[in-house]
């Protein structure tokens, strides 16, 4: 492995004394979680960024092969823990595809409401953490103040604040808390009161803009060829919202826009996520007064058995497309599970966009890719 700092003598390029290789992470405050980057530098210019994975590999895919179709959903909360609910949703959709169960309309609406709340919570945390990467500490507290409200709503209904474990195949685990509608409306009011602070503190700030604009340019063609999805791809003008392209649940009946920017730099990716939070608020506003009555869970057998075959489902998490692929051999446990996580593809583009820029900008680029390491490593 690499030493903390080492000089590589490059004989093929005369005139250059040598490149410096530095390790950022796995235990480094600037990388979120435990990402290990090996960066080759020339002075302060980045020549190469190599992400090294495996530090928190927990073999979730292999683990899922020994768990039943009800149990494995809860392990996936630990992949992308910031949008745990949406992970569970993707798995439940895949199992339901195999079981051919009809989801009650009430459960569908509850799922979407929770999905969008999770998306806002995830983007809030990203916003605070990214500003903190750039040296602004205050936004972090502003973001967490609003996120706390969402966590309270989650705790009331789901019973947990971060890893909700609320979705089961066939619907949701429990009915909504009686105060859910009231609290969610309060949150929307609070959010609308506070959103101007976000813009004044960070978005409109010229120092922030100077550090973001033109940094980490990703062209639309590269975004497609690297397999980027989610806000990273949409920042380059690539339409990739699964909710629009392959609608699941009742997303096709809802009115919302896919936020798109064409610039492809860090600031465009930033604006996408800010815009997405507002679109999520729009979705919640449409649904919050129209939750249909009825069952919150379809009747399913106690032991689930998927017919022999292959099943694939995809959802839009806060980071991009999450695909769940199940191969079933007509047993109670899956024969093979594969997760297509958005973070992995988005991380692979980091080397491409970081080459030639300064070391200080690397953190800004990583911030706008919104990496969650357990999602990448699984």
């Amino acid at each position, binding site marked *: 492995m690499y030493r903390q700092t080492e000089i590589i003598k490059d004989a093929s390029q005369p005139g250059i004394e040598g490149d410096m290789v530095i390790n950022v992470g796995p235990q480094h405050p600037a990388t979120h979680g435990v990402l290990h980057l090996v960066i080759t530098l020339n002075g302060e210019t980045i020549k190469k960024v190599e992400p090294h994975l495996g530090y928190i590999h927990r073999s979730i895919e292999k683990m899922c092969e020994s768990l039943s179709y009800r*149990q494995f959903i*809860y392990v996936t909360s630990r992949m992308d823990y910031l949008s745990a609910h949406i992970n569970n949703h993707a798995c439940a959709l895949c199992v339901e595809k195999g079981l051919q169960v009809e989801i009650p309309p009430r459960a569908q609406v509850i799922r979407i409401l929770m999905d969008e709340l999770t998306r806002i919570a995830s983007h809030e945390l990203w916003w605070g953490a990214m500003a903190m990467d750039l040296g602004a500490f205050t936004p972090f507290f502003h973001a967490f103040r609003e996120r706390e409200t969402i966590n309270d709503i989650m705790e009331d209904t789901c019973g947990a604040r971060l890893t909700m474990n609320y979705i089961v195949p066939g619907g949701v685990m429990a009915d909504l*808390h009686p105060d859910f509608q009231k609290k969610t409306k309060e949150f929307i009011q609070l959010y609308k009161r506070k959103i101007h602070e976000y813009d004044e503190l960070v978005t409109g700030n010229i120092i922030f803009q100077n550090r973001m604009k033109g940094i980490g340019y990703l062209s639309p063609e590269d975004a497609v060829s690297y397999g980027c999805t989610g806000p990273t791809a949409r920042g380059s003008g690539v*339409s990739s919202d699964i909710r629009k392209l392959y609608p699941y649940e009742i997303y096709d009946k809802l009115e919302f826009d896919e936020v798109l920017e064409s610039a492809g730099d860090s600031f*465009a990716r930033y604006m996408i996520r800010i815009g997405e939070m507002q679109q999520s608020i729009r979705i919640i506003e449409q649904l919050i007064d129209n939750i249909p009555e009825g069952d919150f869970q379809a009747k399913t057998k106690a032991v689930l058995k998927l017919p022999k075959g292959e099943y694939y489902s995809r959802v839009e998490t806060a980071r991009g497309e999450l695909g769940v692929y199940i191969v079933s051999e007509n047993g109670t446990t899956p024969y093979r599970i594969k997760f297509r996580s958005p973070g992995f593809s988005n991380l692979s583009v980091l080397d491409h966009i970081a080459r030639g820029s300064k070391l200080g900008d690397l953190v800004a680029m990583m911030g706008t890719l919104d990496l969650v390491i357990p999602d990448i490593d699984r």
Partner: protein
Amino acid sequence: MLTQRAKQVDRRPMTGLESIYLWNILKGMMITLSHLFKKKATIQYPEQKRTFSKVFRGLQVLNRDAEGRENCTACGLCAVACPAEAITMEAAERLSGEEHLYREEKYAVKYEINMLRCIFCGFCEDACPKDAIYLSQTFAPANYGRKGFIYKKEDLLIPHPIEQPEAYKKALGEKVVKADG
């Protein structure tokens, strides 16, 4: 898929006034300072504690019935349902003269939950046919060693309702006791 719906980001160069940065720093500070006079979002933790919701999934509790007999029959359904394989137990048959201790003919001699493995999903509570295990509104406190996180039956059992009524009531919290289990 490339689309034409994308917006353009404003990228005019900075004006001379903007490049001083002073106004933007002051603007940011104004927002921060204005929060000095607003309602605080924080609570003073050790003195003030926030209450958990009724459905919060925290530390497991092994239940007793109203007469103080243990509900658990060591059927093992919770251990099977557990995705994290955190629960282990050993069953034994009730002897005559132990009717005041255990409700049914079978009981758990050993019942352990490894709190480091537990993911607090609540499947054990769902799986239990005897209403013997439920998740309370507290969480596992910190400990110095790994062994301290393996909760034995003594740690998990709810206090006796007749011998320690105060502690029992506190441990039960908002939980509704079913008559027949």
